């Protein structure tokens, strides 16, 4: 019995400890603040989670290979502007908007990946540079295209991308929850049950060994950066639809919070180790703590 508890707290697997911490946190705050379980507060917590959880998932791919991507917040911000641009100026239908935005996010990810793998610049310096470049591009579009100066979107056909509920009348399951479940579920299968997913862990654990074992290390890294970019773009789109607003500043201070969540979730910064459940629980912990700060 004791050893079970010890294993949970000190053990290799941090997820159990995180779940206990989350439970204690919820218990503590539901006793301390009477409004914790009120539906308003509850929806405020839920509403803050999706974009963050999705970007965290993206960053996790990069951290798993032992790198760091600081440009994800800028990619999210650029997507927010791009989504409004596609919607207002190009009049894209939602599906085309989604595909184009995710494609552009993937392109930015590929840019990071190519610089890191082909030129060999340290990932943090690379993404510090692209962070500034991409944010600058977002501000450029936002200030120079006249239709973009007010990034407000009120068309429900777009907003339902993140505001829809299943079933529609009883508002039981928000569609964003479905996105999170799908993306984390697919990532779980991809990381743990495909050979490419195992290669990601192998590259992160020891790059030299992975190369000697015949893994194309550069390709694995490149794919991780592309996935991170695509997921950040998706997160940006979700955020725009939730807020009904796309601005160039969107996600400007996000990356610190995202790195914190991924590290708190037990993903090793040196790479090769980390679990999806840990990241998800860490996102919940961070968001609940931040919200309590506000409400109390």
């Amino acid at each position: 019995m004791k050893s079970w508890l010890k294993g949970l707290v000190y053990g290799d697997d941090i997820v159990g400890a995180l779940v206990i911490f989350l439970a204690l946190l919820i218990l503590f705050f539901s006793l301390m603040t009477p409004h914790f379980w009120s539906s308003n507060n509850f929806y405020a917590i839920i509403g803050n989670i999706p974009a963050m959880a999705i970007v965290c998932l993206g960053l996790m791919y990069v951290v798993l290979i032992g790198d760091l991507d600081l440009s994800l917040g800028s990619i999210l911000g650029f997507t927010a502007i791009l989504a409004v641009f596609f919607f207002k100026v190009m009049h894209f239908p939602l599906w085309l908007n989604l595909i184009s935005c995710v494609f552009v996010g993937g392109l930015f990810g590929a840019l990071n990946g190519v610089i890191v793998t082909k030129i060999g610049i340290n990932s943090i310096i690379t993404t510090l540079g692209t962070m500034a470049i991409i944010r600058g591009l977002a501000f450029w579009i936002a200030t120079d295209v006249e239709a973009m100066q007010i990034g407000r979107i009120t068309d429900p056909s777009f907003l339902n991308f993140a505001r829809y509920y299943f079933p529609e009348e009883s508002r039981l399951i928000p569609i964003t929850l479905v996105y999170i479940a799908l993306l984390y579920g697919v990532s779980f299968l991809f990381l743990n049950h495909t050979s490419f997913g195992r290669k990601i862990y192998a590259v992160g654990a020891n790059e030299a060994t992975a190369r000697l074992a015949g893994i194309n290390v550069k390709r694995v890294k490149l794919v991780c950066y592309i996935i991170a970019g695509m997921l950040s773009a998706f997160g940006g789109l979700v955020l725009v639809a939730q807020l009904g607003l796309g601005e160039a500043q969107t996600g400007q201070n996000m990356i610190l919070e995202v790195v914190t969540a991924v590290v708190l979730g037990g993903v090793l910064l040196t790479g090769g180790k980390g679990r999806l459940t840990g990241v998800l629980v860490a996102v919940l912990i961070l968001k609940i703590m931040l919200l309590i700060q506000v409400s109390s």
Partner: protein
Amino acid sequence: MKSIGIKLSTTSSLFIFLGFLIAVFSITSEHFLSPYNITSLLTNISYSGIAAIVLTLIIISRGLDISIGGVIGLTTVVVATLYSQNDPLPTWLILIIGLGTGAIVGFINGWCITALDMDPIITTLGAMAITRGLAYVISDSQSILMFEETTDFISNGVFFNIPIPIILFMLTALICGVVLHKSKFGRSIYAIGANEVSASLSGISVNKTKMILYVFTGMAASISGIILLGQTSVGMPQHGIGAELEVITAVLLGGTALSGGKGTIYGTIAGVLILGVLFNGLTISGVRYVHLQIFQGLLLLVAVATYEIKTRNEVAR
């Protein structure tokens, strides 16, 4: 093809590039070479230059500090808050506390990196978040006005017609240059950056050296913060956002290698001047701020990529 007879060092090619930039901008804008613009250019670069000079030492020792922007913001808030109390402390004490703020942050960074063996980037990324957060907490997210003679003199005063920030910048460069290039301590910084294990085996106390460097970087960031506070007459938690990008770009542009053991103070001075001239010249030629940000990111990547490829060719040869 016959190769060109003169082989340029990195630093001299940087200064040639700087001369080229100055020539271009003096043609594109008639105001570029006016005394007023030159003074304001040099005053502006002093603020990030001081931090860049000291950061050079850390990067040569194979470390990194990205908490500089956070420390700048925190220092302006601490100093302005202390001054705006009903019964304020004497100004010299407040300024020492301001410098101490950076020193304490640097000490904590150094302690985490040496004693706990944490990664410098992660440690200082955390410090960046904590210092910025503290600045928001202390100032209650407000801007705090501060009109005071001493800070005003530090930022806007002149000594023999030379603005004080420029003097501070030159002093920092001189001291760090002598320490890095002429002293035993400087040699040990290069040794640590080149190979920490062999440096430690040859009797250099690695942890002590690193600790000193991080404390001094924190203090340099605080000096930058105090200059910024005097220039703007306001302490606010948003001060220094993005400063780390500017400072790191200047250092890496100057030819200091992230992999440690390589770099000079002259290079960093050239990097700081190039960044300053480029931004000043582009601004008075009518380029907007959003585009400058793109330039800055591109410059960082191009500079690092150039050195990376150059180093690889040298190794391959």
